[in-house]
């Protein structure tokens, strides 16, 4: 690898104040992190396949994880990653939403319980896990990270360095994963059991609180972030326009995903209750339940968002 090539290649997207160009740029750190994530995950799956084999749930988990990794890659690499790091605050906010609302939950769903067990054993992470799976802790971690990573005196220096920019992205991904743990943890015993509380948690943690910093950003009379105010402009867009859009995205950009999830929780709950009632009604003359031939059987390989204590593996 020549010295010239190394000089031309960056580790992570950062603010450079250089005029924007549509010429693609290689960010070696992004590829290394993606390779490490997918490589480690693939290695664990392969090891599992060789030892006890992969069941349908594991195969579905692979799909979720790969989708999450793809979302992560799209949000981190050129062009979105660079636009969000050094040009447009609205893209920065969009990336936050992708990290926390798309990549993080997909990757959490994509980790089976046996893999999580191995992981926490290796990194001695059970203590952290037991803390962060508590809804109030998870909500605090998620939103403290949200505020922290949007403080002007944090964003400006962090986005101006590759390591700092990497750190912000890592905080987003980890805090997003923590935020989803109470409803998507691989250990079903630990999930919020009641659908209504699940929805309340999601609304408060992902919907209600971000409205506060979102409003602050939207209605600030001056550009808050030096990085984005001094970035070369995109057409007639002023930093104020960009900031207002960013604030609006933070306030309402999560609504499509959040309310889709909440709606799915309700629909599933309704379907589940319906099935239970039909089981109760289908009894023979002796009062024993009659099995339904035509009842749609849920796929056994999909992790639940309506967790129940009885579904958890014994520990």
């Amino acid at each position, binding site marked *: 690898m020549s010295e010239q090539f190394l000089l031309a290649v960056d580790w992570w997207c950062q603010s450079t*104040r*250089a*005029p924007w160009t549509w010429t693609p740029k290689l960010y070696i750190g992004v590829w290394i992190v993606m390779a490490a994530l997918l490589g480690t995950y693939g290695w664990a799956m392969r090891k599992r396949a060789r030892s006890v084999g992969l*069941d349908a*749930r594991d195969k579905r988990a692979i799909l979720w994880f790969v989708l999450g990794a793809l979302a992560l890659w799209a949000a981190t690499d050129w062009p979105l990653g660079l636009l969000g790091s050094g040009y447009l605050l609205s893209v920065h906010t969009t990336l936050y939403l992708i990290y926390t609302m798309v990549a993080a939950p997909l990757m959490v*769903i994509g980790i089976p319980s*046996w893999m999580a*067990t191995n992981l*926490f054993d290796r*990194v*001695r*992470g*059970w*203590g*952290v*896990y*037991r*803390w*962060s799976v508590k809804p109030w802790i998870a909500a*605090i*971690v998620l939103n*403290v*990270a949200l*505020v922290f990573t949007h*403080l002007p*005196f*944090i964003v400006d220096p962090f986005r101006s360095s590759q390591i700092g920019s990497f750190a912000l992205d890592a905080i987003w991904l980890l805090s997003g994963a923590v935020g989803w743990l109470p409803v*998507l943890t691989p*250990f079903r015993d630990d999930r919020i059991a009641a659908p209504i509380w699940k929805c309340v948690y999601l609304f408060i943690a992902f919907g209600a609180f971000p409205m506060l910093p979102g409003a602050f950003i939207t209605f600030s*009379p*001056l*550009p808050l972030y*030096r990085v984005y*105010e*001094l970035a*070369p*402009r995109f057409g*007639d867009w*002023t930093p*104020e326009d960009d900031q207002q859009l960013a604030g609006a995205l933070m306030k309402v950009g999560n609504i499509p995903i959040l309310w889709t*999830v909440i709606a*799915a929780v309700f629909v*599933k709950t309704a379907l*589940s209750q319906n099935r239970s009632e039909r089981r109760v009604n289908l009894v023979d003359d002796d009062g024993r339940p009659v099995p339904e031939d035509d009842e749609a*059987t*849920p*796929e*056994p390989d*999909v*992790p*639940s*968002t*309506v*967790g*129940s204590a*009885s*579904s958890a*593996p*014994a*520990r």
Partner: protein
Amino acid sequence: MAIDAPPHLEPPPEAPVPRDRGRGPIGLIVVVGLVLVAIGIVAFIAGGDEDPAATDAEQTSFYGRPVEPAIERPDFTLIGTDGQPYDFQAETQGQLTFLFFGYTNCPDVCPISMATLTDALSKLNRVGAKVVFVTTDPSRDTPERLAEWLRMFPVDVVGLTGSIEQLEAAQRAAGVTVAIAEAPDANGKYTVGHSSAMNVYTPDDLQHLSYPAGTVQSEWMRDIPRIVADPNWNTAKGVAVIGAYAGPSSGGSSAVYVSLANDGSDDVLAGVESPDATGASLHRTEGTTMVESDEIDLPTGSSLVMQPGGTHLMLEGLTREVAEGDTVRVVLRFRKAAPVTVEVPVLSFDDLAERMAE
């Protein structure tokens, strides 16, 4: 979206998970981290307003770099966007003025520096400031192009261009690095290396501050009102009237004697008129002869004392006869300084004779 699996389809139970392992210091680290972040939030919220407990040094410091010793407002004449000559010193004298050298094809520094300043001025209701943008790329920045580009900013900006030599001289006069055009690429495009400093001239016609590229709106919003309020920088220098008297009228004419001091830059008394007379002219003595003069030089640091038998102003066709105790008004016009209207007391002939004897 994930769907619950009924209990009878759950995978076989796995080995018990030893979930109490490793709880030791990690929980404490998380708590400490949360506390630190909470402190950050409080600091962010509290940091929105000016800290009333800030020290005097913080209160009086500026984001701009101090220029010490202060530099005089430069003297150069270029071409405005209307195609007419624009004398920078004369047009901006005594006014808060922001001077920037750049070019309209600049991809970053120029539009951003101009935008942050003009956005702040717009929000401050302009505070009577003048913004002047001088191109360093005259071949592309025609007056029309300059005018079009400057229209994108929220306040009026004076755009100036000229020949390469004129522009280089202007940059040297302003004390900034002279711009250099890079070699064009294959498409004929090129950039121009130029100073990124924003020179700020205060009403005392001096530059006390220079703002670097990267000054943001909030910094301008904080500094500009303080620049305007600084009493040391807002005393306009230039030509001052230090005395005036006139003689009684005779045959509809009267002589007026005005004394001037110039502590500003070189200037010229370029004309006189009076609302109390149909004609007014400058007269000076050459040897023993009194001749009418178009203008009288007022070099920097000089004073001009008019007196009977010497230089004076002559009012002709007075609209009324004037005598001791009356006043006449004269308007003095200078090449650079703003016109000055003087209310001149009329003395008696005896007083005039005494003045002449002095």
